[in-house]
């Protein structure tokens, strides 16, 4: 979704440089869109990390989600027409201790008894740099759907897989999850490493 169109040219130039001078092809890190385009399944080796700052600094709450699924499609002709859909299962939340995990599963936070999933469906993808993009979409948690934005950076790719770091700051109160504020920040920082395997 963040494969720049201009990268094709850059890759060609780099290959040309490589051919003539054997200089390191530093600019060729991002793949040509034509090479990267396709459908990907989000690998279970991906990491969905979150953290919430606490008043006075120090620690806060952090953890990750062990169970999730989804996929994305990188459009061959226009990166802006790429899309991503993602589902995570908050029941699988992992944190520093059981009490925190159970609290996050409870009616105070994810209410997993009534809402099994948190979903994200992209509505637009905008390239912001050679290897960066912004993905906007609809995040649905506890039955409330809101538009959210994530910043995506390409980190690695090969013929079979492609990896990104994805960061986003999500305000939780609009989803009815304002428990613990103002001791704990209203903003949840998501820091994810998403690896896609070509379908």
């Amino acid at each position, binding site marked *: 979704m963040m494969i720049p169109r201009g990268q094709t040219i850059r890759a060609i130039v780099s290959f040309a440089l490589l051919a003539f001078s054997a200089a390191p092809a530093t600019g060729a890190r991002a793949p040509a869109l034509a090479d990267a385009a396709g459908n990907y399944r989000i690998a279970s080796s991906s990491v969905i990390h979150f953290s919430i700052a*606490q*008043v*006075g600094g*120090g*620690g806060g709450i952090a953890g990750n989600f062990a169970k999730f699924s989804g996929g994305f499609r990188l459009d061959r002709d226009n990166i802006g027409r790429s899309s991503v859909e993602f589902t995570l299962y908050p029941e699988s939340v992992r944190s*520093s*201790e059981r*009490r*925190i995990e159970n*609290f996050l599963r*409870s*009616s*105070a936070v994810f209410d997993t008894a009534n809402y099994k999933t948190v979903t994200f469906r992209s509505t637009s993808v905008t390239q912001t740099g050679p290897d960066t993009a912004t993905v906007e979409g609809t995040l649905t948690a506890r039955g409330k759907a809101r538009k959210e934005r994530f910043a995506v950076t390409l980190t690695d790719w090969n013929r079979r897989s492609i990896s990104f770091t994805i960061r986003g700051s999500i305000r939780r109160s609009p989803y009815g999850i304002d*428990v*613990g504020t*103002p*001791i704990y920040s209203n903003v949840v920082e998501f820091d994810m490493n998403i690896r896609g395997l070509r379908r």
Partner: protein
Amino acid sequence: MLRNSDSGFGSATIVLHWTIAVLILGLTLLGFIMRRTEIDPALQFSLYQWHKSFGFTALGLAILRTAWWFIERSPAPVAGLGPLEHIAARMAHSVLILLALVVPLAGWAVVSASTLNIPSFYFNAIVIPHLPLAQSETSEAFWTFAHALLAYLTLGLVVLHAAAALYHHSIRRDEVLVRMLRPSFGLRRSRTLDAHENDDTAVERK
């Protein structure tokens, strides 16, 4: 009127006494409710934070109360109080003063030793730092037990203390309870003092 006199308590003592009394009873009730397992988790979190804010308030007032208790004279015992009764009352009051300090300190220790590391945000205004205790499950469990045990001990002693006051008021019909309700103006009681009490009217200091 602010200060204690030989014949009764000043308003400072009375206000501290009743404010701390209300806080102790309220905090005990709150502590009991918030520990119930079937409580709504979001409500439980809030109740814990209220308990902490009011608990720190109780600690602050208990420190003032203790300082005042050391600085101020105690009024002479009421007429007709036997020496043993006087000693028993003094001991009960000393232990109550001590528990009013120790129970919230133990509560602070729970917060500090807890692996949850939840900040104490006093009425969502000031962060009160943790006590320098190692955070571990064992330490948290110990202080939780100590805090609860001391709190129930306090509650028991408060019941005894209140029963004694009511006994003095209703059966002995003396001034014990009334003295803690109505500030003394430093005047002698209008009632005739008997010989025994006259001996005790010298200013008593702890």
